[in-house]
């Protein structure tokens, strides 16, 4: 899943934290990393470059056994990142939610939002959970609680191969749907969904320590956020759907979850 990962880096990047992140991703299966910086035209100090990154950090990471490549792009930041991710054949893009006024669950910046919308490769948005070990230790899969949010439609089956890579974790399958228009249809629909979820449970059971499924009625974003907080989830895995007409002014479900969740999100387009 993270074998070859693209990490966008900015001028203000904290080298030590970045290193800690990369080492953690290595524990999650990463063996090649592309550090990608987009130069913003028109900035007074924009052409300073990332010499610190090319020298010390690259050497440090290579010592850890990682293949490191540094690339620089220009133009519209999100588009450049999305294009590079595609051309370089990376498995995932990693975005770290920045800590602003000590609130990491605050809204994402417009660049991150655009990346989520534009990129054609899976994107991992790292929020508060899972916490990167300060002492350099690894994140253990079996300690992770993963929420797999699915509407049981085509888009939500795409994350399955990625989901299975969190081997040994606790998997919580969450299906959110609208209530049917009458009690009889509702009961029949509920039974049908239960069948589908049982099949999914069976499929995922060999890869996970524990698999639980639940169906809820309501607004997808609200229910995912509520459940992830209730069970203290670390990562929410979900598919990205084509934006609907109303997602332009209102924000898509994925965007709302990414903005408000304390758990990290693995979004598969």
């Amino acid at each position, binding site marked *: 899943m993270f074998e070859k990962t693209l990490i966008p880096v900015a001028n203000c990047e904290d080298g030590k934290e970045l290193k800690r992140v990369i080492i953690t991703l290595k524990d999650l299966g990463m063996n090649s990393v592309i550090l990608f910086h987009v130069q913003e035209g028109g900035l007074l100090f924009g052409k300073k470059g990332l010499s610190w990154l090319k020298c010390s950090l690259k050497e440090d990471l290579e010592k850890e056994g990682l293949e490191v490549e540094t690339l620089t792009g220009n133009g519209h930041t999100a588009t450049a990142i999305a294009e590079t991710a595609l051309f370089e054949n990376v498995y995932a893009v990693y975005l770290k939610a920045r800590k602003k006024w000590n609130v990491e669950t605050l809204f994402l910046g417009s660049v991150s939002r655009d990346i989520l919308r534009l990129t054609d490769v899976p994107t991992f948005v790292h929020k508060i959970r899972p916490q990167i070990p300060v002492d350099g230790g690894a994140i253990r899969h079996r300690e992770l609680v993963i929420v797999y949010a699915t509407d049981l*439609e*085509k888009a939500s089956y795409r994350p399955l191969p990625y989901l299975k890579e969190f081997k040994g974790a606790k998997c919580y399958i969450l299906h959110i749907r*609208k*209530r049917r*228009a*009458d*009690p009889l*249809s*509702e009961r029949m629909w509920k039974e049908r969904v239960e069948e589908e979820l049982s099949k999914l449970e069976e499929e995922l059971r060999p890869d996970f320590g524990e698999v639980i499924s639940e169906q809820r*009625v309501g607004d997808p974003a609200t229910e995912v956020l509520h459940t992830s907080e209730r069970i203290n989830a670390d990562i929410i895995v979900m598919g990205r759907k084509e934006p609907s007409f109303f997602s332009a002014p209102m924000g898509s479900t994925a965007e709302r979850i990414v903005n408000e969740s304390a758990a990290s999100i693995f979004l598969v387009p």
Partner: protein
Amino acid sequence: MNVSGFKQELVFIISSVVILFFILLGVFSPAVLDYLSSGVHSFILDNFSWLYLISAFFFLIFSLGLALSKFGTIKLGRDNEKPQYSFFGWLAMLFAAGMGIGLIFWGVSEPLVHFISPPPFLSAGTPAAADFAMTYSFFHWGVHPWAIYTIVSISIAYFSFRRGMPTLISSCFYPLFGERIYGISGKLVDILAVFATIFGTATSLGLGALQIHSGLSHLYGISSAISVTVGIIIIATALFMASAIIGVEKGIQTLSKINITLAVCLLAFILFLGSIPEILNLFSSTLGSYTNNIIDISLQSYPFQGESWSREWTVFYWAWWISWSPFVGIFIAQISRGRTIREFVLTVLTIPPLFTFFWFSVFGGSALLLERGGAAGLAQVAGEDASLALFVFLEHYPFPALLSVIALFLLMVFFITSADSATVVLSSLTSGGGAFVKVYKKMVWGLFLSAVAIILLLTGGLTSLQIMAVTAAFPFLFVMFLLCYNLYIGLSQEMVFKKPEK
């Protein structure tokens, strides 16, 4: 009564207790009732008159959207169901439900009142005021009321006949509330529907009683004291309650048919004895002006030219239609089983409004032509007492006494049939939507309907009736918005079912 019985009767208990409180307040402290209702009414008009305008326009667009979209082919019933009534029988019943007392009351007086008291930016009694009067009469009685009825009718018909749920407004909330429709949330929706129905119908009954009284005073010189109006309501109450309790459905149906025939005869009489070309000219011209300006007038409150006119008329009408919508909506739903949404909406939004336009052209238009032709005093009478205008108008035609008696008969029968149907609908709404209703409930609602109409007439006459219609409709306005949402969800799911399985 055990706990489950109490829960089942919660809608009846709460709504009847609140209405009883209202009646007692009106009897023992009319000043307080007047102060409270006027306060709430002013608050609503000061802050939300725009909402009524936007809502009615939205309901029209939503109804048309349903008819012209992929949802239009969905049947209000099971797929293999056929309509229960013939097309013309269905149309006659639609017209009877939507027309009622109001059209007889306002048919002559509304254009005259607008003509003599137009908004401040128009001079009274001018050709421009006459054009304005006719266009706004069409507007108030045109497609918007029917769009309001459509929302409630389609929701009830869809969730009851296609989804197999009880004939209750709360049933339409299943997509939003789920099993909570059987709890407090659902009960609250039904209670709001009961309040809207009782005050909306009481307004119509009050108007009817006022006009019957005016007609009797005008014809036979009966005292104009309010006690006579109260007496008329009491007599009518005895008649409609007897009909509702005994269940003389056939008799009522026959009376309704006679009424419609008489109404059409009266219309034809006035048309043929008036100036046919002028009336038809007025009809086509006003239809053109109405259709051409429909978007503008739908949302127009003349904020820089004195918005009080729009509040007093358009907002009152929209509120009145909204308060009538649970009652008329349930009735129309019941007679429309087996028709598609497209057939329902396109028929309801064209044929009854066209008939109403014709009614206004014949009665209101003739009255305006008479007034402009020098029959001085007709508009003055309408301005002073709207209920009297019809009878003064009929004096300009041959056999005025006979025509007035026919008009009185029409009013009385409309009064009885409307009140009878409202009693049945109220009883059904407070009995879980069942067809079989206990007699005591019919008695309670029949008495309450008349008592509310009497209290409102005693506390302030026509103004009080209008105030309560606007106030009672306000909460139901929000219910109607949610009905649109629930209906959309239900219909969208039909489309999912129609798609091939994944």
